[in-house]
């Protein structure tokens, strides 16, 4: 006899389960599905329009199945605007911001989590307070600082204010505090320095939360429009979001080209989100709880 197979005599018990359990989906799905659809419609419309001809794009009610796939739209966009330049700029700014946020927020978060120093908690509260100040309030002072640094209209001007953020410091500190401190003590006895403990023990155990911070920083920086708008004015230094608006101005009428440009802007975020969503969700769920 094997225990792997259920005893046939027991099977009637399964039929007695509540009726809803017999659906192959959760009772939440019928509620969530329409909401998901509403959210998806603009997305689908963008994808469809980006492959349509200009006349199809303008028709109402909207054409949901284009007569032919117009790859040409994408080529037109690439030829018409310094799109590749903007893409590269966005990539540089975002990569630098993500990398520096991961590094500096780790260092600061670890110090706030584990190293006792005078005024630690007060400084940490101050950092948290900055989370409550809207960007519009600090925009002008930050602009003046960046100007002083001579970084207006450069990619450096976009990167500098985003090197580290209060949110990242907070997120990582909370996570680091949830790790068992004995691991770090064992490593210190084993001969590791503080910085060694951070890089060899703490960070390798912080994959999910680092992924979370990385994705959040990526999306924030990639989609940021306001700061590039006031810092950058030459076309060569624009990021995708900023470039897209100038493109919009010139192609008010060509909805299909506009949507093709939008597609190219959104795609990296989408890909990243799908790749990292496992960590993203788990990171949010475990932050502050035991790691």
């Amino acid at each position, binding site marked *: 006899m094997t225990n792997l197979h259920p005893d046939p005599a027991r099977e009637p018990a399964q039929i007695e389960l509540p009726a809803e359990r017999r659906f192959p989906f959760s009772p939440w799905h019928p509620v969530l599905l329409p909401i998901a659809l509403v959210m998806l419609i603009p997305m689908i419309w963008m994808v469809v329009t980006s492959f349509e001809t200009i006349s199809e794009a303008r028709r109402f009610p909207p054409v949901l199945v284009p007569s032919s796939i117009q790859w040409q739209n994408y080529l037109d966009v690439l030829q018409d605007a310094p799109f590749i330049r903007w893409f590269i700029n966005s990539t540089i700014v975002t990569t630098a911001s993500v990398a520096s946020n991961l590094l500096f927020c780790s260092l600061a978060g670890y110090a706030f989590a584990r190293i006792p120093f005078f005024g630690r908690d007060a400084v940490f509260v101050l950092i948290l307070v900055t989370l409550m100040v809207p960007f519009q309030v600090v925009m002008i002072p930050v602009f003046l600082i960046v100007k002083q640094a001579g970084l207006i209209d450069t990619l450096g001007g976009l990167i500098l204010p985003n090197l580290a953020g209060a949110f990242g410091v907070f997120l990582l500190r909370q996570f680091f505090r949830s790790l*068992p401190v*004995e*691991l770090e*003590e*064992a*490593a*210190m*006895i*084993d*001969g*590791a*320095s503080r910085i*060694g403990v951070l890089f*060899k*023990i703490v960070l*390798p*155990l912080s994959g999910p939360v680092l992924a979370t911070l990385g994705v959040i920083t990526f999306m924030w920086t990639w989609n940021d429009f306001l700061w590039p708008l006031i810092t950058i004015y030459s076309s060569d230094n624009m990021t995708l979001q900023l470039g897209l608006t100038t493109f919009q101005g010139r192609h008010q009428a060509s909805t299909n080209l506009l949507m093709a440009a939008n597609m190219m802007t959104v795609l990296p975020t989408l890909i990243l989100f799908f790749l990292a969503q496992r960590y993203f969700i788990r990171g949010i769920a475990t932050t502050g709880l035991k790691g």
Partner: protein
Amino acid sequence: MARVAFDHVTKVFAADSVAVDDLSLEVDDGEFMILVGPSGCGKTTALRMIAGLEKATAGRIRIGDAVVNQVPPRDRDIAMVFQNYALYPHMTVYDNLAFGLRERKTPKAEVQRRVREVSEMLSLAELLKRRPAQLSGGQRQRVAMGRALVREPKVFLLDEPLSNLDAKLRVQMRAELKRLHGQLGITTIYVTHDQVEAMTLGDRIAVMSAGRLQQLGAPQDVYDHPVNLFVAGFIGSPPMNLVRGRADGGRVVAGTFEMQRPGTPDGEVVVGVRPEAFVLGREDLPVIEVVIEVVEPLGDEIIVHGTAEGSAARSGAEEDDLPPIASGSRAPITARFDPTARFQPGQRLRLGVEPDRVHVFDARSGLALAAPAAG
């Protein structure tokens, strides 16, 4: 290998809680020293101060000839096994073992040789490629030991290393620890609240309570001659029977129990008798009359719980407010006999005690009065 010494060491945590209070203690080179006491007695704090994980508030800590108060953990040349093992979860067993050596820039061939040596000594060779999550409790425990041993430290610190193991494994690892210490001869300081571990493992044991050292000595010595009520109540399982009494002109009386002990100062006393010191059918000895309430046959011995006239005394080492088996105004008495004896609940026993196996303590100070010659 090295001596370790506490020299009037005090540790005060914030909010004025004194964890360790003026501790002076010397651990000889190669000695197996046990710090034992109930939880919160300061034993783990003392151990962490040797490791450098806590800073002493006052006093000096020496490893070898050097005062190490200001030396960071990694330069103290000590190794520690934590209660929860603290294995690095993202590393294989091999990397866990090799971590300390690599941090110290040991040549690769040497790392390999020593990891292999230690993993053979602790039968970990098969497990080197696994991660801690894939190991059983006993295996994790051995890896934690291996990680400490592989560095060949001067001092070996263990913080309740067996408390997370089931009873059978604990007995096995206890023997293993003793064997390893005999083989390597590293100065070892071992923290536990388990007095069986304390009795079996240590060359000497240091009994601590409320941050203070209560008694220091060879395990049998401490067992036979507890210097105060706390040590008497803490060391020994089942614990020593303690009954309130009076001393008057060299006569000690506690309930129906009466004996001559010349030289005992007059006043309130506590009379202590170990469970195994009682004998049956010896009317020539001082006798205590006990009514049996519960009989526990353990196979190799029988434990009898009963009550006697008198009132129980507290040693301060009791588990938190456990209700005593005896009820009412009588004193609980526990006695241990070999398994051939037969007892019934409700039965009355007259238990004799050799006078030199009776401990008498001053009721007020808790100090032992004229310690008897043998337990």
